């Protein structure tokens, strides 16, 4: 059944869209990533203009993140204090990122920068997570005691704060800095930033994996809500009909994903996320290197 999308200005099969929303929503609930790094390329692949895909997907992620956060919150797996710190940094970072985005666009190479940052960040994060989680799975098989967290210079930073849910007593500067960095990336790459945020919270802050997912989703709600509003007012590229179809699939998928996530252990979750991140990285990397079918393209600013 075809449906005409008023802002995207094209007809797409409604079941294809529902399926995409459900699939990405499931991964969102499972891993605590917004899913933007999967959904944006998928939408462009089925024929949605890139500008509409980026903006609409931000709106859809708001819905799936709200649904995911509520599911995690009921299990007490959201550290709101930590989330607020990350968010303050995120707002500063994304404001700077939007400014950087417009400079890169005026230089005419924004889509190359977007693709390269996808390859670089997905590659580094996916690779590190894959190595670390496969090593810890091997270690737990050998029944060796887990390595104790050691104190280093990061624990000597000022403005110490207690994060009860995360069972951490660390400087507020740490989540703030991570928030700023992820904010810059999310503005340039057009994603919520969960796939950077989640590993940063695990490896840099040392948060327990169970709390990481809910807290990351909590922060993503606000980052993507801000992006949706800015895109709607500045570019009129948010397609409410497309978003509605995607989020019907998305919210249901996120609920199932959160349940499935509760059954898997931290290492298994991380190794699955790592494989997925690496897969997208390789795909985008190949697109950059392989000779395109047609060297000429119409338009193309900001496309992934």
């Amino acid at each position: 059944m075809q449906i005409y999308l008023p802002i995207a200005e094209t007809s797409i099969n409604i079941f294809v869209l529902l399926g995409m929303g459900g699939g990405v929503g499931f991964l969102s609930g499972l891993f605590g990533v917004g899913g933007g790094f999967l959904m944006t390329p998928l939408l462009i692949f089925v024929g949605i203009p890139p500008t509409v895909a980026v903006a609409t997907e931000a709106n859809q992620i708001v819905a799936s993140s709200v649904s995911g956060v509520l599911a995690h919150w009921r299990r007490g797996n959201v550290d709101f204090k930590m989330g607020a710190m990350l968010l303050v940094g995120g707002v500063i970072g994304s404001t700077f990122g939007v400014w950087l985005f417009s400079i890169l666009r005026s230089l005419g190479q924004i889509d190359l920068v977007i693709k390269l940052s996808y390859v670089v960040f997905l590659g580094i994060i996916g690779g590190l997570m894959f190595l670390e989680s496969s090593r810890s799975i091997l270690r737990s098989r050998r029944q060796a005691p887990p390595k104790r967290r050691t104190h280093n210079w990061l624990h000597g930073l000022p403005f110490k704060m207690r994060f009860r849910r995360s069972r951490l007593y660390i400087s507020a500067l740490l989540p703030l800095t991570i928030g700023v960095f992820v904010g810059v990336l999310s503005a340039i790459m057009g994603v919520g930033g969960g796939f950077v945020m989640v590993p940063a919270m695990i490896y840099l802050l040392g948060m327990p994996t169970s709390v990481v997912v809910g807290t990351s989703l909590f922060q993503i709600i606000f980052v993507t809500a801000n992006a949706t509003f800015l895109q709607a007012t500045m570019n009129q590229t948010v397609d409410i009909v497309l978003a509605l179809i995607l989020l019907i699939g998305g919210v249901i998928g996120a609920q199932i994903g959160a349940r499935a996530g509760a059954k898997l252990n931290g290492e298994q979750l991380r190794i699955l996320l790592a494989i997925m991140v690496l897969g997208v990285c390789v795909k985008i990397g190949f697109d950059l290197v392989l000779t395109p079918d047609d060297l000429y393209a119409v338009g193309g600013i900001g496309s992934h």
Partner: protein
Amino acid sequence: MKIRLTYTALFTALLSSLIFLTARPLVAAPVVADLSEHSVAITTDFSGSDILLFGATQGVEDVIVIVQGPRLPRTIRRKERNVGIWMNGESVTFDQVPSYYAMATTRDIDSLLPAEVLESYGAGEEHLIITPALGTDPSIDVTAFREALIRNQRRVNLYSQEPARVEILGDSLFRVNLSFPTNVPVGEYSVRILLVHDQKVISTGSTHLKVGKAGIEASVYNFAHEYSALYGIVALIIAVTAGWAASVVFRKA
């Protein structure tokens, strides 16, 4: 409207056959033709649209029909390989590119009219007047970019040219079915009709149609453009409500 069209067509058919029979050297009379509908309404279940163009041949054997959509600027970029990576290199912006172009004819276009005549009527993609914007680097080979533009438009079904689409009925009427794809751009369209005989254009005529969003599609589009801040807020309210509703439903389940 359909009844009126049929009467007009019949009347013209009779009249033109009369002219055809009595006066052998063709008289240039204005083309009489009409569309089955003058608007394409894009609604939620829009999956393309067919419109019938019907008219009198005035005794000629060949008819050319050209449909053009609103003209818009378009930028074409060429990818170049640098250190193994494909990146955007040269680009050319063309002013006034027809967003839609379809030509239907009775026969192969090149056998109908000489090239310079085709050119003067903008008949055929290769004869379209598409010029680069002012300030385009003169050292760039614009032809390749122009061809790429046409190739890209063809790929997304926005440009087409098909011989043998126009049917001649009897010896006095012609008929062609104009198909518009789902991604048809909105705006005012012109439909030009050329009656061709003996390598010459005997008569020309034109009509127009409007492609526009209708119903919910139009309301959403206008809301997004006229009250964009409110639209953004509504989009967020829908998203948050849907997320909350889903989690409530699932908790009970």
